[in-house]
């Protein structure tokens, strides 16, 4: 199981966009409402394409919607 946690601010963005419902967001990005619920609750990490679609639904960037809280390994230096 991946211990990395990806937080998100989808709920805040939904309310900032005219109190968009989970169903409306699900229809815009092409998934089921249960998937939006799971993502909002942090129980499912979306794929990159879905993350981009969600960000575009709110006219913002992926980093604004999703925050990575894991311990990322530093980039490898081959030289």
């Amino acid at each position, binding site marked *: 199981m991946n211990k990395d946690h990806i937080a998100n601010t989808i709920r805040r963005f939904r309310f900032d966009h005219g109190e968009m419902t989970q169903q409306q967001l699900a229809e815009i990005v092409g*998934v089921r409402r249960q998937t939006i619920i799971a993502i909002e609750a942090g129980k499912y990490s979306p794929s990159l394409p879905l993350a981009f679609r969600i960000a575009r639904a709110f006219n913002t960037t992926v980093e604004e919607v999703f925050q990575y809280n894991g311990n990322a390994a530093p980039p490898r230096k081959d030289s």
Partner: protein
Amino acid sequence: MTRTVYEPFNWEKTMNFLQKKAYFTLVAFAINLIAGGVIVAVLSTDGPRNPEFLGLGVNQIRGYGLWQAVFLVIIVLGDFLFRKRAGDILDERDRVIGGKATQWAMTAFWIAFGVACAGLILTLAPLKIALPAVWVIGPLIVGGLVVFTSAYSVAVLVQYGYGKRNE
């Protein structure tokens, strides 16, 4: 002040067809297992002991065969009743859950198959029987399918959170 309104649980809106099929399969398997157990119990008691109980004497090959056929019917019926229909969405999370469930089911199948083979060897070896009877193939195949399908269904329900709304 906001007031949270809780809607009543809605089977149709909350679950997708994978969850419905999983519940159907597990419940139908359980009923069939209990029914088989009752028949075995009736046949093994001194009360209404009758090797031709309802014509389904489970200590006979045809009884086993019929019992196993019901499992196959349940699997096919589940696929038919809860197939993907027009308008059903199968998104990336559903596909991830389906993929993981298949892995869990394959693991359960190979464990069960190994235990069944070991059981056969341990049963037949003391009797100095080199080859099992041909009819053993049927229960092995159907048993494998039942283990696979059950493990798949359990894995699907566990990953979806038993149909909770997660809200």
